[in-house]
């Protein structure tokens, strides 16, 4: 079952071998764009122009839920998020949740704290920590400058359909949920069991799950889910590029019956390397012109690469004194944690540890005071602030966090620049409530996720039996419809998923391992049908417990050896013949039956036995025997019985 409408924030339910797994638990935050930003320093004249509905009745119902800013309409209420379609399944029956990376776990508290979930959550340790930072940052932003008014009138179908397109396009707003709390985060993460790369975990004896490096972020992983005879792989948030995390490990993903792919790049038209170059270039141009640069960002992930590339480029351009400010409620833990996860990093980063140096250069930047981190704008920033500067601040949606303050502060000056690098949000929509904006806007989305060509190459290499991808991955992106190569192309054609859809995966359980109890084994008389292969008929009871199959003696009282039809009549015991016919023995047996003058003729495939007196021809071939007689029943029966006697039977 696919619970999420955004393939980059996936959430699936997989029923396999009697186990129910949830694969990722992503939270689609893009719906917060429908809301007004949460200002850090509230101003009375900001966002207070009420939007009037043309229909007075509806306007009356709406009240002042909607506000108009620069021609766009926004909801003036507390922020809400679009959680996955948890109603599609009974969450209390989910046995385990497998998380791939910090980007795909933000809806986890909704499952663990509000659904009766009793299973276990598996992820790597960095994913847990970075995920915690993301969640805490989100909650802090929402709680720090709360807008306590919950707006729901605009969501009613009657009103929603008459609202401007931007709001009308909201996906199931009635199902949106308010943000969880810090307590929820603590409780939720306490249920997490951390795993290492390639560490095997047994799920109720039925499945072995393993996490393997996906190269996307620190501790990000792909999952292999194995039963003794089947293997399913789940690829989410994977990168084949060389960045800071440990490179992708493809070996465990080979020889799989099926691969599910999600979280491919959100910006297939933009090359990440070029975008980093653009980012650095635009930053330096602004600084050299005396302006400030604002970079809306998440507290971890790509930001580490940005610090590294940007500081080195600033050095190249002789701008060694320009300060970098990093504002996030979790900025301290984010910078600190990144430097202690050496074993989860790329080879080059790991090798720095042996020098010994911190794996990331931002540690040095912090130590020399060039990169300064603050929990928020009131955390001493005023004392150190020096312009021109580069500010990294959350949240990339521009609806919450310190970034809102900086846009309001710098937005009126043409010398400043806002640089978008996070691809999660359409930047024009994100900027809509701040219009008219004078500051320069640059869009350099950096998404290291798999591009279509990389994904196709990877799949050609991994050769899975079947491929399952998002529906949007098999057709070119809507804004690049002519780019027909921007699709996932595979043979057999990939199965596709979309929000709210249930898919039957083409995996058939053909084999299963069954154990036989010693008591039953004693009664079995195997017959060797070919060297090393013995066969026997068994009548026993099949016991299934903890996904293990055992054959046991039938309990007393059960009829043994007598099978009955549904109507109660006895089924005659059948015997199974096998083996190849010895022609000479067969001829001798026929002779003993009184058939004389038998002629045998060898052919390419076997022999033909001619019984001229009975006008009968017996054709014996490798896998078949044909008796062609003139219809005399006695002769036919005689030959049949003789033949059966000459063959072995079970």
């Amino acid at each position, binding site marked *: 079952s696919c619970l999420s409408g955004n393939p980059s924030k996936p959430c699936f339910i997989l029923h396999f071998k009697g186990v129910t797994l949830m694969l990722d638990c992503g939270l689609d935050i893009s719906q917060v764009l429908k809301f007004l930003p949460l200002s850090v320093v509230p101003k009375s004249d900001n966002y207070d122009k009420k939007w009037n509905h043309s229909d007075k009745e509806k306007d009356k119902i709406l009240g002042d839920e909607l506000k108009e800013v620069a021609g766009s309409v926004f909801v003036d209420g507390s922020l809400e998020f679009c959680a996955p379609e948890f109603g599609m399944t009974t969450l209390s029956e989910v046995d385990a949740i497998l998380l791939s990376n910090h980007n795909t776990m933000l809806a986890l508290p909704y499952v663990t704290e509000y659904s009766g979930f009793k299973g276990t959550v598996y992820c790597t340790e960095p994913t847990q920590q970075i995920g915690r930072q993301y969640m805490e940052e989100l909650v802090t932003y929402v709680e720090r400058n709360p807008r306590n008014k919950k707006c729901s009138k605009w969501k009613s179908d009657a009103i929603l359909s008459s609202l401007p397109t931007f709001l009308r396009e909201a996906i199931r707003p009635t199902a949106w949920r308010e943000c969880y709390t810090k307590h929820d985060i603590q409780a939720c993460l306490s249920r997490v069991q951390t795993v290492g790369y390639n560490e095997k975990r047994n799920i109720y004896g039925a499945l072995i799950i393993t996490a393997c490096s996906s190269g996307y972020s620190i501790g990000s992983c792909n999952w292999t889910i194995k039963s003794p005879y089947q293997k399913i792989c789940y690829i989410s948030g994977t990168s084949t590029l060389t960045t800071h995390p440990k490179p992708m490990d493809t070996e465990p993903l080979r020889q799989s019956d099926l691969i599910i792919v999600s979280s491919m790049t959100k910006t297939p038209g933009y090359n990440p390397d070029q975008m980093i170059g653009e980012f650095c270039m635009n930053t330096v141009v602004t600084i*050299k012109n005396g302006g400030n640069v604002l970079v809306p960002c998440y507290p971890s992930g790509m930001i580490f690469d940005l610090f590294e590339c940007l500081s080195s480029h600033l*050095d*190249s351009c*002789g701008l060694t004194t320009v300060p970098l400010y990093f504002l996030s409620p979790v900025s301290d833990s984010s910078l600190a944690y990144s430097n202690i996860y050496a074993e989860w990093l790329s080879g080059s980063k790991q090798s720095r540890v042996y020098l010994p140096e911190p794996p990331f250069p931002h540690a040095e930047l912090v130590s020399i005071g060039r990169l300064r981190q603050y929990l928020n704008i009131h955390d001493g920033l005023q004392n150190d602030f020096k312009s021109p500067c580069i500010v990294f601040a959350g949240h990339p949606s521009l609806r919450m966090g310190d970034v809102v303050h900086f846009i309001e502060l710098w937005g009126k000056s043409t010398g400043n620049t806002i640089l978008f690098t996070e691809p999660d949000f359409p930047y024009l929509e994100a900027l809509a409530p701040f219009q008219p904006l004078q500051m320069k806007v640059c869009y350099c989305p950096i998404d290291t996720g798999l591009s279509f060509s990389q994904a196709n190459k990877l799949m050609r290499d991994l050769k899975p039996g079947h491929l399952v991808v998002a529906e949007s991955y098999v057709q070119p992106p809507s804004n690049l419809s002519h780019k027909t190569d921007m699709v996932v192309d595979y043979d057999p054609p990939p199965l596709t998923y979309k929000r709210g859809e249930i898919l039957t995966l083409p995996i058939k359980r053909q084999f299963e391992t069954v154990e036989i109890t010693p008591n039953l084994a004693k009664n079995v008389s195997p017959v060797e049908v070919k060297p090393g292969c013995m066969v026997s008929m068994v009548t026993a009871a099949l016991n299934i417990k903890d996904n293990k199959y055992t054959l046991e003696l039938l309990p007393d009282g059960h009829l043994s050896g007598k099978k009955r039809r549904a109507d109660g009549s006895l089924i005659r015991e059948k015997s199974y013949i096998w083996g190849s016919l010895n022609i000479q023995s067969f001829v001798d047996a026929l002779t003993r039956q009184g058939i004389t003058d038998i002629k045998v003729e060898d052919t390419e495939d076997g022999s033909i036995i001619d019984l001229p007196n009975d006008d009968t021809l017996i054709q014996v071939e490798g896998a078949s025997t044909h008796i062609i007689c003139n219809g005399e029943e006695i002769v036919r029966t005689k030959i049949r019985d003789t033949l059966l006697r000459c063959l072995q039977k079970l």
Partner: protein
Amino acid sequence: MDTMNEQEYCKKVQEVFEFLLSSSCNIHDDTLYHKLLDSLNGKMITPEFAESCGVIDFLQRAGNNTDISPDTLVFAVQLVEKLVSKLELPGIHLDTMSVLIETVALRTSVDNLSVFCALFTTLTTILQRPCIKEFCLNIDFQDILKKSFDILKEERSIFLSRAVSEFICSLFSSKMAESQEAKKLLKELQTIIVNFDRDGSQRVLSPSMLCSLRVLEKAPHLFNDSFAEILDVLIILMKIGSTQSSTTAARCLHSLCLQCQDRAKSERVKSLVTKAIETVDIVKGLHIAKVLYPLQLLERSSLENIILKPLQMLDKTNHSPAMHSSLPAVSLSLTIVNDCNIQKLEACKCVAEVLKMTENRHDDFTGSGCNSFTGSSKLQIKCLDYLGSYTSKEVMLSVISSISNIVSYITEHMIYGKCLQCLCRLLPEVLCSSCYSSERSTVKSDLSKIKESVQRNFCSVEWEFRDTSCEFVRNLMDKHKDKEGVILWMLDSGFLVFACQAVGDGESYVRATSLSTLQTVLLSSYRTNLLQDMNTTIGEIISQVLDVCKTDSEAFPRRSAARLLHHCLLDLSYLLHPDSIQCIAQCFSTSLPSDFDWEVKLIMVEFWCAILKRCFDADLDKETSDQPLGIVVSLDCLKNEKDGKRGYVSISSAINVLLKLSCDYDPSVSERVCQELCWICETMEKFVLKINSATNDDNRSDWCMCAHCSQLITELLNRMTERKEKTRDDSVFKTDYDSNALSLLDDILLLDRSHDNNDEDNAIDCY
């Protein structure tokens, strides 16, 4: 070479020849033959010396010796070539040499390609010498000509065919052209051309046909007898031959036409060529037109039509992909337009149009407006090359618009550089044009787009872009230093600030270019405005540059910095604060002499020489000297203080710096310093004389002759004497073999002696 050495040399040369003629001679390394040949060529100044060295004897014996190795034979033949072309040899020596050539021609198998290559090359040289007839007396010239013709027909090897072809061509421009043998050969060459297979099966020409055509091209008058047939063949060849054959035929037709006395014949050639060129395919037509354009066989305008045809066939209405001309044809056409330097409006329009079609547009990614030319760097380079040298006013704005679009989405720094070169050329005219001041014109927005792109590229991740941007600013300042409009545009764009900030760039090349730009700024007549715009002063710049001189780890920025300081002191000393002058003087006298880079040291040498020259010149001719003397060089020692002017370094210190550098480990530095010290020494001597003969008190007080200064002059004179002695021997820069010809001979003889122990398996070929 003194007599002793000469005798030893002759003796050794003879020994070497003996070794070469011996059957045991086995020189694996043929470079030794070449070095010996070069050495002998240098030493053989007279026929007598050649004789005394045993050269003539060697040649005689080489002709008679059937056992000598092919390499030695090649050496002997090449030695003949060198001697004949260099010396006026007596008849007896010529006889010896002609016998050798005759023997080689007769006895050697044609399979021995290197020997025959050398033979024909030597014969080609001899053909041009006055002694050719005398030389040919002893050889069977007819046989050699026959052999040469046979070699051509057999198509043996490219090198041999080429040598033979050269020989035959030279024959018809030599004194031997009138010989019976030559005439016979000419007949055969004519026959080859006339009998050319006209059915088109022979698209690639045989060496004999090629040779015949080369002779025809060089001496068309010899082919007058069969003019009609040859014309016919050439026209066919032009139509059906390969590109190379067609262009060869075109050149022959031009020669044929040139020598035509008969106007009718000449007109016929032109008309046939015109018709033929119209029937051939477009690419071949372009190749032929390229050959004919500088030859003036046809009207240039008609050839220009052919050359521009692929460009004119493009669908210009909407730059759509529906084009009638292929990319290779357009590319070739552009190459020819560039090569032939067709600077005409029509050509310029076409090139500008192609450039427009190659524009990298923002909508490329969405697919609309793309064609096969979009983003073609090959075409862009050719167009920009052309437009960089010529752009007519009519297309100027279109070119600016294209450049603005190209640089907006540029990914190759080479094209970026060419765009900026082109812009640099066009900018003054654009800024003066009426369109620029018109509100409706798009040129302003194009220029502002370019400004934005250049600013971005000043901050590019790739240093080449940053460097090219800096270079652009330098070029603007340099080429349009008097054009106020350009300077204002540049100031408005803020480029100057970016260029000067690049002094702190991470890449040394960018720092170097930035410093050169700063130098141009300081030397500009708009200096004050420029410095104001940059919000800096000359003193701050000097301090920054001095810092680069002393601390930069790379040589390129230090070179640029040293150059800047050099020019500042020489040309702008009146603007500098005394502290700055002192710092520069100190830098040049203490830091730079110990620099690791030879070029920095050379700049420093130039600096001190220029300063000293000014001091000396001013002193010698006081009336012409307006320069404030002693601004750098102090007058207080060697040259005494005068009029209260004090410098920062004494002349003696300056000379001391140069003296130290005359012993520099880098020969290019020490050699240069020694050259400079010559004139300094001469000038100093004049001053000493002047002092000694001076009678009035003024002159006596000008120059000091204290013990220190006397010692300096003595040291200077000693150094010069040492140098003269050193230069008497051969230059130190020459290789060991050049400086000592005997060592080469010794090495060859060593091969002879070590022959027994020579283990071929262990021989290492160092070449």
